[in-house]
């Protein structure tokens, strides 16, 4: 800022900002690409004045001074224009002359992103690195048995069950008494978690769905994807690809009338119905799709007029107890497809997760429970919710699983874990750890955005601007100028890469355990951790 301007409490210098633009005058060719690409206008072209003093040796002549100007890139310091570190400038710079650098100092911006009394909101996930999952090791390794599986070459089952698996005696009783047993799906244990049409761009959504269809139809991997709460495109509802889709219903019920209208025309049943009660990234909080993002397309899919704000309340209305909530919703959703489609709730990991689970154990229709931990991502939430609300997935999942074990139903209600899986890139290891802690499968969203679409967001407060619709990669934007940067085919191809590689990695982990016919769900004797407290809490081995 100008030195002769008055300061205000939120006047910041570049040093105060979390991301600082390093710009090299010598390398810069003034091509304008960095300022054209910057999603938040954190940098601007500027005129600089430079002074040159000419003083002769021995001060023989009168000293002279001259002013020159030069042009270059200036970083803005107003909180509204702070650099988000996405580094798109670096990506487009032909001369590598510009790059955001992480400050070496405490972030002062944090004290000022509440202008007008509006607390910081953002996308991404908890801006805190690390976590228990990456520390878990797989310590039970069979080297001597035959058959020793070679993960890279041997085919073995990487499948899990979604749906209520009745105990044999119950199964017999159900057939006898009801003429019905709950539907169960055999699916791939890595599910793409709910990211709505609206939260994601149309190109991203299409890419994900296409990749999933490819995995199913070309590679025989029964991968499933949840729609998130935002409806489902009419064409998808009426296509055979619907069988790969888990339709999510959440507190806003957007798009559900369109889904209901499509039911008579559906070629196939969806994989399952996910009732979203909570989200790991912002437990207890709802959502709001701002009116300006509700364009014609989103509106058509959600079944609303364009240009209106769409609130998703923190809870489903008209439901006043866990029992009522669970019973009512599960029954309703089963009925929609004639009890042919599994229905399960999704909740935020929390100390109340067990209460929900206990209820499900008494509800013979409940097809599973998805638990979303505090490291889950979101398109938009208050920072305080993301960074401070919620429960780590590992212990919540573990508590639930051990609770099932104690009531003897661990093989009956599959648990699906989500929230921060692959947070540091270790997708298969994290997934395997959760499976061995008791998950039947895992749900991932953020990792998929990072791996399949090049999402730049990270836990060092990088980018994370999904909430303002300016995603520089076109993943979470509804602006064609941004989302057309993303090609659905490229995304689909990367989805395939991710799954095929994950598959190999997961086999590399489970094969040495000698598991070739079923996932090692709950096989916690294979787990160890270099932390006695965690080991005790999770009831796994303490290894040092």
């Amino acid at each position, binding site marked *: 800022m100008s030195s002769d301007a008055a300061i205000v409490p939120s006047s910041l210098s570049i040093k105060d900002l979390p991301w600082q633009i390093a710009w090299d005058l010598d390398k810069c060719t003034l091509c304008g690409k960095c300022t054209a690409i910057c999603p938040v206008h954190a940098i601007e072209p500027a005129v600089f004045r430079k002074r040159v003093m000419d003083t002769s040796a021995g001060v023989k002549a009168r000293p002279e001074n001259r002013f020159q100007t030069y042009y270059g890139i200036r970083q803005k310091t107003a909180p509204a224009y702070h650099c988000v570190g996405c580094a798109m400038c670096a990506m487009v710079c032909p001369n590598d002359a510009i790059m955001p650098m992480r400050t070496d100092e405490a972030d002062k911006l944090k004290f000022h992103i509440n202008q007008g009394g509006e607390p910081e909101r953002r996308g991404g996930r908890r801006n805190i690195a690390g976590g228990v999952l990456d520390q878990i090791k797989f310590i039970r390794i069979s080297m001597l048995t035959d*058959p020793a599986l070679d993960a890279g070459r041997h085919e073995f089952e990487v499948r899990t069950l979604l749906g209520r698996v009745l105990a044999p005696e119950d199964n017999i009783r159900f057939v006898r008494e009801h003429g019905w047993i709950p539907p169960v799906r055999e699916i791939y244990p890595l599910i793409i978690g709910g990211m709505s049409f609206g939260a994601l761009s149309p190109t991203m959504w299409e890419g994900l769905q296409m990749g999933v269809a490819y995995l199913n139809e070309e590679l025989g991997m029964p991968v499933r994807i949840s729609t998130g709460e935002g409806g489902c495109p009419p064409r998808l509802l009426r296509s055979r690809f619907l069988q790969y889709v888990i339709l999510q219903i959440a507190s806003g019920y957007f798009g559900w009338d369109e889904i209901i209208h499509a039911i008579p025309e559906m070629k196939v049943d969806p994989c399952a119905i996910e009732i979203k009660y909570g989200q790991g990234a912002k437990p207890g909080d709802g959502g709001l799709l701002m009116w300006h993002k509700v364009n014609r397309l989103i509106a058509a899919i959600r079944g609303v007029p364009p240009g209106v704000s769409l609130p998703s309340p923190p809870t489903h209305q008209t439901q006043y107890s866990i029992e009522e909530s669970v019973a009512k919703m599960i029954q309703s959703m089963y009925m929609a497809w004639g009890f042919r489609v599994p229905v399960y709730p999704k909740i935020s990991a929390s100390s109340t997760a067990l209460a929900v689970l206990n209820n499900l154990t008494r509800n013979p229709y409940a097809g599973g429970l998805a638990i979303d931990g505090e490291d889950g991502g979101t398109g938009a939430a208050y920072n305080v919710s993301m960074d401070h609300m919620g429960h780590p997935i590992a212990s919540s999942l573990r508590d639930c699983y051990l609770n099932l074990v104690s009531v003897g139903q661990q093989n009956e209600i599959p648990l699906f874990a989500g929230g921060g899986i692959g947070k540091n890139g270790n997708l298969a290891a994290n997934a395997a750890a959760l499976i061995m802690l008791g998950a039947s499968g895992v749900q991932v969203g953020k990792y998929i955005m990072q791996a399949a679409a090049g999402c730049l967001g990270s836990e060092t407060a990088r980018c994370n601007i999904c909430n303002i619709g300016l995603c520089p990669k076109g993943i979470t934007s509804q602006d*064609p100028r941004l989302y057309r940067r993303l090609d659905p085919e490229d995304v689909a191809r990367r989805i395939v890469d991710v799954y095929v590689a994950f598959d190999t990695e997961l086999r590399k982990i489970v094969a040495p355990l000698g598991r070739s016919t079923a996932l090692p769900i709950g096989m916690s004797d294979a787990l160890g951790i270099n932390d006695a407290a965690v080991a005790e809490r999770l009831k796994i081995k303490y290894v040092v």
Partner: protein
Amino acid sequence: MSDNQYYQIPGVENGIRLESRVLEEKIQAAVAAGHRRIQVDAYGQHGIGGRLWQAETDKVLVRVTGHSGQRLGSMGFPNTRIDVMGPASDDVGWLNAGAEIVVHGNAGNGVANAMSQGKIFVGGNIGARGMTMTKQNPRFAPPELWVLGSAGDYFGEFMAGGVAVICGIDPQTPENILGYRPLVGMVGGRIFFRGPHDGYSKIDARMTPISDADWAWLDKGLTYFLTAVDHLNRYPEVADRDRWQMIAARGPKDKVIRKIRSMAEFQIDVWDRELGRGGLVGDLIEAEMTKIPLITTGDLRRYVPVWANRKYRAPCENACPTGIPVHDRWRMIREGRLDEAVDMALAYTPFPATVCGYLCPNLCMSACTRQNAMMPSVDITRLGKASVKAKTPTPPASTGKTVAVVGGGPAGLSVAWQLRLRGHEVTVFDRSEQIGGKIISVIPEARIPKDVVAAELERVRGLIPHVHLQQALSRDDIIGLKTDFNAVVIATGAQKPRTIPVPGGQKLTPAFEFLRRAKVDGIDPGKSVVIIGAGNVGCDVAVEARRLGAESILLIDVQKPAAFGKEKAHAEAAGAVFRWPCRTREITDEGVVLDTGELLPAHTAVIAIGDMPELDFLPDTVKTHGGFVTVNAYFQTTDPAIFAIGDMVRPGLLTDAIGAGRKAAAVIAGILEGKTPAEAVILEEAQPGQERISEYGGVHAAAFDGRQVMDKGRVKLEYFDPRITEFHDVDECGAECASCGACRDCGICVEVCPQAAISRRELLTGGYEYVVDPTRCIGCGFCVGACPCGVWDLVENEPLLV
């Protein structure tokens, strides 16, 4: 060969099974003793028949009866031939290094595992993982496994060399003689087989035609094999070449992954075929979805530059109550058009020299953007002073409309001037002996040369011929004007001094009276003067008092003195002292007594706390409030036919009065054309980018201006020398004016644009504009960042329809 020729080694002695170690010692001992035919009656011992290298090149025949244990013939040597007379356990020929091993029955799992040389013949079926991890060492012949029946699961896993022959005779699994998932990881060797199979690892191996040489080798080997396992009678079954197939390992470069559909093909052939053209939302979206680059042009730019010339008011222009576009005058100076720069001011004010050059506190300079960088404001007084030479404009032809202006001070003359410039007939009435009002009556001569005022008043009189002086109008006169004229403006100012209700208040001399008398040297202030009210008028009094011989001059006020600018400076130069807060209790012959009891001695005590208008002559239809005339935003009084401007409406600066005159004139002109005041105002508003100056000389410059003031932050003061401390002439002033918000036609934008997208275009109507070629522009904003004047804007592009 007959049994009795064999050296017998039993596996059980005295009813006790020999340990594998003991049996091995016995076999080795027998060989060492020269036995070359050995029969072992096995009892499940490990590794029988291997490692017989002691016999060197002698052929050693080992016949195994009973239960052969695991790893029969392991590490077998080329000199060894082993015949197992029944079935064999797991891992027959493990790590075989050359032995010929014949199993006359079935063999278990792992036959030939890791075998490198030698031959294994099995006269039955084999279990899982046969022929796995076999090698071929180039120093030796490849290992061979011949199986009469079928292979178990995972056959040939990781096979790295050698030949396996699966004859398919009496197979254990007739529907699939190669078992489940054979040849996974195979990198070398060949498999001959005869019979159905259920697939193999096509990534690793491929079906290969059997050549004549292959067949010759196979045919010869079959005879040998069948002979060895005593099944030569089955030869006719295997003699049909056409029923044989061969699978060979793929070489490293041959390892094609199975052909899978590309995603592009999938999208066309599967995805779009099922969903319809355009995929998921092809039915809902019309806009194109194809991929675009990061840097885009045209409609795909997120932001677009706009040449917003004159879209905003320059800070100087905005600050000037008269509304003079000061920066435009400096532009004319830069263009060498001094005369025009001088003359154009007359479109705004009849007193460009008197006011801008001398008497105005120059609010334009206080607002100058240059001050943001501690640089001196461009000095308008130089141009103001030069304006004394401005030529009287010629008014347009008379419209025949008449307007009466009561009061010939700055406000009245401004409105009269403006109406005359629009061709209306104006008659000015003033009760004094000459026009000019305050300018000539109370402003000390020290502040402005007489001849400047005289010249400007002469110019005014040149444009306004109908002036009636010494005409004090009554209420009835005003009512009469309403009928005689199309419009009436009253602008009689404020001459009635405000005073304070204290004892002895009548002893105070009103400031304007003091100044008026001072101008004709008609007053002697004495040695000490106290002035109550330390505003600019008080300062004028102080200056005059000094000129007339006062030695002690004290300006007191109840609050911080409001004086500022030149007036204050002059008063201080005259030795006046400011003192506050002071509350006056009484005026005595000795001076001013404060409420503290302190006496401020004064020969003359002057009251200078402002003046009030005289309103007695106004008709009842003209309402007042708090001693001033009530007007609306158009300077219309409560009597719509009567306008009021100047100090009688709101006390202010000369420039305030002149500006009010301009605005009132615009409204009156509009009304005279049959418009409502609101319409008149809208039509007066300047359009952004309009060349308003060129309109001068017939058409009037707009008085009402809906534009916003420009953000000073847009101006690039970096282009200017911060070490300039003063200006020497108007040319220097013109050069250093930043021309806020108005293009100075410097061409920096054209040159700085990395895409060469900006060009300058002459307009047919005169003037120019800068235009952007959208097919080249990438929306980088370099034009915005470089423009010295802050003319270029970067705005969000129109939303694309989805």
